[in-house]
């Protein structure tokens, strides 16, 4: 798995570095810590220092001296690359990558571009409070990244133990990658999985034999020893349900191109969900 961790110098980024380290180390992932500077003329040393500090915390958060990542004994230098600057880390055979990168340009656009160009599977971004504002950025930066990134995005809000993942998983179209991302999240948190099924006046909603498709998803998880169950929600009540359920656990919403949830949710649901959710939100693609 490849993870892109977008950060700046604010608390909502710094406070989730240990959680990002936990996710990365447990999934044995290659990770890039990315920040963005506006000017392309010269490396912003303050931003470089912030990345170095975040990396130190990242490595010290992992038991066993940062393994499987390589901890250099000297501060990391940066070299210019086409998209900005990249840390020159040393390496050790068998270690996973923990890269530092600084891109230049518009923050939202550059995070999205890096996610796409680097073929990442997951973007992690912090948004610790409803009024969280990325420094010098629009209020809704995490929302915009979550809406536009080509891969899944985990917006980490409050850090607290989570025993439940609430999955809005489109039973007829969900991608294998999304099912797998849920598996990893459930494993990491040792959580139960509540799967949301939609009902309308004619029963369960969706294309084809929805009942069988939902049973397939449930069987997929129970066969893998995940404690999962289905909760039915009326289509009209979905938005209210989602904002209320976000108090109980991490919300995972599949928003792939063919997602029924993406069609049913009002246009700005992702924004509202991230803004109002009291827990972390995983947008699956």
């Amino acid at each position, binding site marked *: *798995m490849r993870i892109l961790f977008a950060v700046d110098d604010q608390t909502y980024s710094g406070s989730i570095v240990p959680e990002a380290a936990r996710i990365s180390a*447990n999934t*044995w992932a290659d990770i890039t810590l990315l920040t963005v500077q506006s000017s392309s003329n010269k490396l912003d040393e303050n931003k470089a220092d912030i990345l170095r500090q975040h990396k130190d915390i990242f490595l010290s958060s992992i038991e066993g001296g940062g393994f499987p990542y390589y901890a250099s004994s000297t501060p990391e230098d940066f070299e210019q690359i086409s998209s900005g600057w990249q840390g020159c880390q040393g390496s050790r055979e068998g270690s996973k990558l923990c890269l530092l990168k600084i891109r230049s340009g518009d923050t939202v656009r550059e995070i999205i571009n890096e996610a796409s160009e680097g073929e990442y599977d997951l973007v992690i971004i912090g948004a610790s409070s409803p009024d969280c504002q990325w420094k010098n950025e629009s209020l809704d930066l995490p929302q915009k990244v979550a809406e536009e990134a080509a891969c899944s995005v985990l917006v980490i809000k409050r850090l607290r133990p989570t025993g439940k993942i609430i999955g809005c998983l489109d039973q007829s179209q969900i991608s294998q990658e999304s099912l797998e991302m849920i598996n*990893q999240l459930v494993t990491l948190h040792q959580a139960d999985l509540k799967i949301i099924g939609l009902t309308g006046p004619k029963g369960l909603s969706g294309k084809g034999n929805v009942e069988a498709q939902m049973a397939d998803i449930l069987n997929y998880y129970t066969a893998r020893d995940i404690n999962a169950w289905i909760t039915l929600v009326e289509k009209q009540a979905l938005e209210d349900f989602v904002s209320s359920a976000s108090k109980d656990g991490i919300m995972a919403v599949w928003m792939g191109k063919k997602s029924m949830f993406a069609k049913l949710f009002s246009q700005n649901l992702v924004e509202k969900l991230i803004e109002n959710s009291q827990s972390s939100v995983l947008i699956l693609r």
Partner: protein
Amino acid sequence: MTDKKTSVLILDDEPIVSKRLKPSLEKKGYEVETFTVSLDALKRIRERDFDIVITDLKMEGLSGMEFMSEVKSHSPSTEVIIITGFATMDTAKESFSKGVFDFLAKPFKLGEIAEVIKRAEEKSRK
């Protein structure tokens, strides 16, 4: 004289994994055999050696960890790559202690596993 193709065995109880990997690896010139049942794969590795084995961890019957031990005891030079949807530090460490070449958590892009296979191939040819 022709170069012998690098042989790859893929074992995953989810057919979609092999369906995705096999054509991509064959296009890169690998000889690929796929299995969804661990006991069938076990029978096959007793019949012939593979250069590289890619195996899931959590499966009915023989687990990926047990399968890897069987592979290594039968053919120590085979490089084993673990792929899993349920990754933990403990399972990764256990895998490496048993001689795994690399450990990948799902989901992963084809490019990522292709790089790992290439490195495993280079090692197996040394």
